C-alpha cells in the first residue's frame, strides 16, 4: 500500500515538472514568436517601387536602368491622378486664381508702359484691364452660379477686342474660359468643403504614392517617398477609400464610428472616378516585389528609424559588450581568486562578500547615475579626457553593474576545482601564483565562462546604465572609444518614447527588438560552444 502511494506521488511529481516546463516553453513561445515574426518582416517583405527608389537615393543600391523603366511605367498610371488633382484644385482655390489674375493684370500694365502709347489710350486700357480683373475675382470668389456666369460673360465680351490681341492680357480670357468650363460640374456652394476634402485626399495620396512631381522636393527624407511596403500601402489605400467619422447617435451616449466611401465627398466631380482608378491600378503604380532586405542589419537609419536599418546599433552593442568584457574579465577573476583562495573567512572577507551581494541587488539606474557622476564627470577628466559620455564610460559603468555576477560565478568555479590539483602543483614546487594561473584557472575556465555568458546577456540588454554615460539616439558610427554610440537597447527605448513616427513604422520597432534578442542569443550560443570545447579539452577528449 505504501509503495503504491509512493509510486503515485512520484508520478504526480514528474507530471508537475513536465507541466511546468511545458508552460514555461509555451509562455516563451507566446512572447517571443510574435516579436521575432514581426521583426522578421523588417527584413523580408513585399517592397514597392518607392522602397527601391529610397534604397537607390539613400544607400546607392539597386539597378538604375531597371528602376527608371519601372518608374516610367508607374508614372504612366500616376500622371492621371496628379493632373486631375491639379486641375480640380485650380478651380476651387479662389485665392490662387485671384492672385494669378492680379499678376497678369500687372504684367499687362508694364507691357503697356513699354509700348509708349498715347496717355489717354493707356489710361483706358489700364482701367479696362482692371475692370476685367475685378470681375474675374468676383466670379472666382462667388458661390452663386448666376453671378459667376454674368461676370464671366462680361469678361469674355472683350475677348475679341483687337487691343488685347497678342498681349499678356489674353491669358485672362483663357483662365476665364477654363474656369467656366470646369465649374459646370462643381457645386460652387461646396467649394470650401471641396477644398478641405481635397487637402485630405492629397495628403493621403502623397503618403501612398510620394510627393507630386510638380511640387518642390520635401526637405525631410521621410516625406520624399510614398508607401515603401505593400501592407502599409494597403492600409493607406483603405484610409483613402473609406472616410471614418464619429457621429452622435443619441444624446448622452458616446459617439459611434461610421465609415463611408470618401468618394461621396466628391460626388459628381472629376475626382470621384479617381477612387476606383487608384484602387484598380494600385499594383501598376507601386509595382510590388518580394524583397529580401538583409542590409537592414548594416544600414544606418534616418531620424526616428523611419527608413534604413540598425547597423550602427548592432555595432554599438557589440563594441559596448566587448569593451565591458575587457574590464570585467580580469577584475572579476582577480577578485574571485582573492575570495576563493584567501585563507580564512575573516571580518574583512565577510564585509567584501556582503558588499558584492548588495551590489548585485542595486537597481541599474543607480549604476547609470554613478557612472555619470564618477566616470564621466570625474575619472575620465582626471586623466585628461573629455568630460563627455562615450563608449569607454558606458563600458566601465556596465562592467561595474555586472561585476557581482561575474565574481560570484568565477568564485564558485574556482572553488569547485579539486583541492588535489592545487596540492599536486604546490607539491611539485610551483609557487602560489603559478599554481593559480597554470592549474586552477584553466580548470575553472568553463565555470568562469558561465559567468561571462550571464554578463553578456545583461550588458547587451541594459538601457538604464548607458542612458547618461554613452548612449545616443541618433548619430554616426563610433570611430573610437571616446565617441558615444547608438545601441539596440537604447534605440528600442528611443523608438517607444521619442517620436510619433514609430507608430508609422512598427516593423522597424519589432525589427530592432528582434535583432537585440537574436544578437544576445547568438552571443550566448557562441560562448556556450566555447565552454563546451574547453571542458571537452579539459576532460582530455
Amino acid at each position, binding site marked *: 500500500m505504501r509503495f503504491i502511494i509512493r509510486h503515485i506521488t512520484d508520478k504526480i511529481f514528474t507530471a508537475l515538472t513536465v507541466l511546468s516546463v511545458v508552460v514555461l516553453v509555451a509562455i516563451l513561445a507566446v512572447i517571443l514568436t510574435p516579436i521575432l515574426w514581426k521583426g522578421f518582416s523588417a527584413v523580408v517583405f513585399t517592397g514597392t517601387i518607392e522602397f527601391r527608389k529610397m534604397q537607390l537615393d539613400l544607400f546607392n543600391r539597386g539597378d538604375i536602368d531597371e528602376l527608371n523603366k519601372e518608374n516610367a511605367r508607374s508614372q504612366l498610371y500616376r500622371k492621371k491622378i496628379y493632373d486631375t488633382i491639379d486641375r480640380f484644385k485650380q478651380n476651387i482655390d479662389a485665392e490662387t486664381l485671384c492672385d494669378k489674375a492680379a499678376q497678369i493684370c500687372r504684367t499687362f500694365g508694364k507691357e503697356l508702359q513699354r509700348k509708349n502709347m498715347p496717355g489717354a489710350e493707356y489710361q483706358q486700357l489700364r482701367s479696362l484691364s482692371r475692370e476685367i480683373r475685378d470681375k474675374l475675382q468676383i466670379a472666382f470668389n462667388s458661390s452663386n452660379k448666376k453671378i459667376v456666369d454674368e461676370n464671366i460673360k462680361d469678361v469674355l465680351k472683350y475677348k475679341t477686342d483687337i487691343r488685347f490681341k497678342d498681349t499678356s492680357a489674353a491669358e485672362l480670357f483663357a483662365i476665364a474660359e477654363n474656369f467656366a468650363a470646369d465649374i459646370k460640374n462643381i457645386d460652387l456652394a461646396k467649394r470650401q468643403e471641396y477644398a478641405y476634402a481635397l487637402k485630405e485626399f492629397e495628403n493621403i495620396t502623397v503618403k501612398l504614392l510620394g510627393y507630386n512631381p510638380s511640387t518642390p522636393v*520635401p*526637405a*525631410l*527624407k521621410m*516625406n520624399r517617398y510614398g508607401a515603401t511596403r505593400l501592407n502599409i500601402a494597403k492600409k493607406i489605400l483603405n484610409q483613402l477609400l473609406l472616410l*471614418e467619422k*464619429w457621429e*452622435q447617435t443619441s444624446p*448622452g*451616449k*458616446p*459617439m*459611434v*464610428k461610421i465609415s463611408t466611401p470618401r468618394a461621396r465627398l466628391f460626388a459628381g466631380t472629376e475626382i470621384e472616378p479617381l477612387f476606383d482608378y487608384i484602387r484598380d491600378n494600385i499594383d501598376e503604380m507601386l509595382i510590388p516585389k518580394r524583397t529580401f532586405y538583409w542590409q537592414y542589419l548594416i544600414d544606418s537609419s*534616418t*531620424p*526616428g528609424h523611419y527608413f534604413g536599418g540598425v547597423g550602427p546599433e548592432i555595432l554599438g552593442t557589440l563594441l559596448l559588450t*566587448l*569593451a565591458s568584457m*575587457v574590464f570585467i574579465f580580469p577584475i572579476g577573476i582577480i577578485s574571485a581568486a582573492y575570495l576563493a583562495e584567501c585563507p580564512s573567512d575573516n571580518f574583512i572577507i565577510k564585509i567584501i562578500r556582503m558588499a558584492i551581494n548588495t551590489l548585485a541587488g542595486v537597481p541599474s539606474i543607480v549604476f547609470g547615475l554613478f557612472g555619470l557622476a564618477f566616470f*564621466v*564627470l570625474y575619472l575620465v577628466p582626471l586623466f585628461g579626457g573629455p*568630460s*563627455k*559620455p562615450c563608449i*569607454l564610460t558606458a563600458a566601465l559603468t556596465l562592467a561595474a553593474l555586472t561585476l557581482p555576477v561575474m565574481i560570484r560565478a568565477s568564485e564558485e568555479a574556482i572553488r569547485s576545482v579539486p583541492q588535489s590539483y592545487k596540492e599536486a602543483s604546490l607539491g611539485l614546487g610551483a609557487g602560489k601564483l603559478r599554481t593559480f594561473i597554470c592549474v586552477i584557472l584553466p580548470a575553472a575556465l568553463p565555470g568562469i565562462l558561465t559567468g561571462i555568458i550571464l554578463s553578456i546577456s545583461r550588458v547587451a540588454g541594459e538601457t538604464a546604465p548607458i*542612458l*547618461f554615460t554613452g*548612449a*545616443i*539616439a*541618433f*548619430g*554616426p558610427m563610433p*570611430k*573610437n*572609444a*571616446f*565617441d*558615444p554610440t547608438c545601441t539596440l537597447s537604447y534605440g528600442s527605448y*528611443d523608438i*517607444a*518614447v*521619442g*517620436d*510619433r*513616427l*514609430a*507608430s508609422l513604422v512598427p516593423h522597424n520597432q519589432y525589427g530592432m527588438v528582434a535583432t537585440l534578442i537574436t544578437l544576445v542569443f547568438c552571443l550566448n550560443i557562441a560562448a556556450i560552444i566555447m565552454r563546451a570545447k574547453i571542458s571537452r579539452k579539459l576532460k582530455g577528449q
Partner: protein
Amino acid sequence: MKKNLFTMVLVLTAVWVCNLSAAEKTLQIEGSTTVGPIADAFTEAFSQAYPDVKITVTKNGSGNGAAALVDSRCDIAMMSRFMKLDEFTASVDKGIMPVAHAIAMDGICIIVHPSNPVTELSLAQLHDIFTGAVKNWKELGGPDMPIVAISRDTSSGTYETFDHFVMRKDKMDASIEYVSSNPQVHSRVKTTAGAIGYVGVGFLDAEVKGLKVNGIMPSKQTVAGGTYPLSRPLFLFTNGYPALGTISHKFCTFYLTEKGQEIIEAKGFVPVTKY
C-alpha cells in the same frame, strides 16, 4: 591558437580605444524628448550640408539637458521649457552663461477618445478634471462615463508647462495616471473611451480628438499668435552666444532659414516666423 585569438582581440581593442583620430568637428546635443525630433531632423539636413561634422543627439528630458549644459557635457541643450532659477544660478556659478534660442512654438493639445462628444473645455474645467473635482464626463455635457485623466511624468517639460498654465499651484489628484512619453499618452487615449490627456500639437491625428480650450482650437495660427492658451516656445540653450561661423552657431540659427522652418513644420511644430 585560442591564445593568439584572444591576444589579437585585446590588441585590436587597444588600438581602437587609442585611435584618437584627427580632431573632428563634433556637436553633442542633449535634452528634451519633445525637441529631440527637431534636432534629429536638423541633424539629417546638416549631415548632407556638412558631412565632416559629427552630430549626436541624446533625448533624456529637459532637466537632464540643463544639467548636461551645466556640467559642459554637451554643446547644445534642448529644452521644452525655460531654465529654472536654480539651474540658471548653478550654471552661472560654474562660469557657464546659458543663452536661449527659441527655435519653434509648440501648443499643448488636450486630446480625448474620438467617441467622446465633448468638443470644448475651459481652463477651469481642465483644472477641475486634473484636481479630481470632476470625475464623470456627464458633468461636462458628455456621456455617463468616468474620466480617466492621463498626465506626463513630473520630469517632463510638457508636464511643467501644463502644470503652469492649468494647475497653477494646485496638486494633481492621486487618481491621475502618469506615463513617461508623448506616444504613450497618445496610445493610452486612443484605446480608452473615457480618457483625456495632453500632448504636443504634433501628436494630434485622426485617431484621437483634439479639444478646443477656452473656445480656441490649437492650430498654427493660434499657437504662433499666442491666442491658444497652452502655447510655449521650444528652446536650444548654449554656453554664451555661439561664436559666429561655428557649426554650433549654424545649428542654433538653422530655424531661421526656409529649410529649417519647413522641417519644423513637417515635424508638427509651429515655426517662429513666416517663410
